[in-house]
Structures are given as structure tokens and as C-alpha cells.
């Protein structure tokens, strides 16, 4: 990040939140398309813990790697989000609950839009400062 004053932690947090929401959306879509797959178990990621985990790993000091075989300090943030299999109820065919998945879809969509909207407004603020500062 070039400028610590104008791009603070909020930017990074929002960026990570958007990325996690996107990955979660992929998983939920996958659950919905496998509605009728026998023995299929719904997968999900916990938004809150994933975000906390990713933000925490952002603070870690990353060692430079001059050789791909070098071992880094911590795991690399975004790729380390592990989806878990949901403890759904057996509906006689598989473990997917459509109502739950649709609610999750709507909820996750809202999370995504909230993060994007906040980012938008943050940028609008910056723009305002740039415009007014030049007067």
C-alpha cells in the first residue's frame, strides 16, 4: 500500500471481506447445484473466523523467498481458508438443506454488497478530499 494515511487498515479488511464472500458464494452455488446428488455433503466457510484469520495473517512478517523451495514463516493467507462440511440432516438422499442454502446465499450476497458499498463510500470520501483540496 503506497500511502498509509489514505489507505488504512479498513481498505485491506474490506478487500479481504469481499474476497472471502466471493469464495463462500462459490461454495454455496456448488451446494445448490448438487441438491440432488446422492450422499453429497454441503460445504461452507465461516465468514467471521475466515476474515479474522486472514487479517491476522496479514500482520505476519513474510520472509523473502529467493528459491521456491524456501519455507515461509506462516501459511499464505487467502489460500489457507479451509471449507468444512456442514453437519446437515440426512434427508433420505443427501445432507443438503435447500432452504438453508438459499438463506445463506441471500445472507452472503448482503455481506458482499455491504463490503463493496463501504469500500465505495470510502473511495468517494477520498475523491472528495482530492477535489476539495485542490481548490
Amino acid at each position, binding site marked *: 500500500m503506497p500511502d498509509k494515511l489514505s489507505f488504512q487498515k479498513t481498505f485491506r479488511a474490506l478487500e479481504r471481506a469481499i474476497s472471502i464472500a466471493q469464495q463462500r458464494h462459490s*461454495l*454455496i*452455488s456448488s451446494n445448490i447445484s448438487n441438491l440432488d446428488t446422492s450422499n453429497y455433503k454441503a460445504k461452507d466457510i465461516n465468514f467471521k473466523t475466515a476474515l479474522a484469520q486472514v487479517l491476522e495473517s496479514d500482520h505476519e512478517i513474510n520472509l523473502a523467498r529467493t528459491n521456491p523451495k524456501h519455507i515461509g514463516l506462516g501459511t499464505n493467507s487467502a489460500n489457507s481458508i479451509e471449507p468444512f462440511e456442514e453437519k446437515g440432516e440426512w434427508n433420505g438422499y443427501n445432507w443438503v438443506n435447500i432452504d438453508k442454502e438459499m438463506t445463506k446465499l441471500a445472507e452472503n450476497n448482503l455481506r458482499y454488497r455491504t463490503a463493496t458499498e463501504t469500500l465505495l463510500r470510502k473511495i468517494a470520501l477520498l475523491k472528495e478530499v482530492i477535489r476539495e483540496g485542490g481548490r
Partner: protein
Amino acid sequence: MNFLQSLEISATGLYVQRRRMDVIASNLANIETTHTKEGGPYRRKMVVMSPKPVEDFDKVLALKAEGVKIDDIVEDKSPFRKAYNPSHPDANKNGYVLKPNVDLILEITNMLMARRAFEANIAAIKSTKQMALKALEIGK
């Protein structure tokens, strides 16, 4: 982009449900078919599905987000229905005609389920689209 992957996943769902409707339509159309090329009455067909990993993007692979695919279309091995109709050309010597093991109620319920699943996938696609469009607004 991850969203294209989500769209692809939902699209596999749409495709599979459409094929499922084809099979249901075939079962319903043949509900009274008493002889087939293979001999015997028509056997009810079923779709067997399994998860299908999305290709290339290793990130999504790591996330284990999967689409769905049709493994096979299998025949229902349950016994045929019997109807007494001695004048029918397919009747056996006791006067019974073997009729397909298609259950009308079962097919209609399956049809409703396929339709709802299709709609659920459409909803997921709509949601993906909304999110992608929202992302396009960043920096406007």
C-alpha cells in the same frame, strides 16, 4: 475471476436439472408403452448424479467448490404393473398385460423437485450477477 466459476457451477446445475426433466418427460410419455425394442414393457429411467470438480482454477479446486454432472441414466428394476386385458396383443396366456413401472405421482413429484432445483440455481446465478455488478461499481 471467481464469479465466472460460480456461474459455471450453477450452469452445471441447470443442465443436469434439464436433463432430468427430459428423463421424466420420457417416463411420462411412455407410461402405457407395453412393448419396446429390447422386449417387455418400458422401464422407468432415473438420473444418477455426482459432484463434478470445476476445471483449471486451482483456487476453487482448493476450496472444493464443485459443479454437478450426470453419471449415468439407469433403469428402475422394480416389478412391472399388471393389468388384466386378455384382448391386448401383449397379453400373456393368463390374460395379463405387463405395464411400465412408471408411477405417475412419483414422476410428478420428481418433476416439481427438478423445477424447484432449477429455480434455485437460477436464483444463485442472479445473486452472482448482482455481486459481480456491484464489484464493477468500485472506484466509480
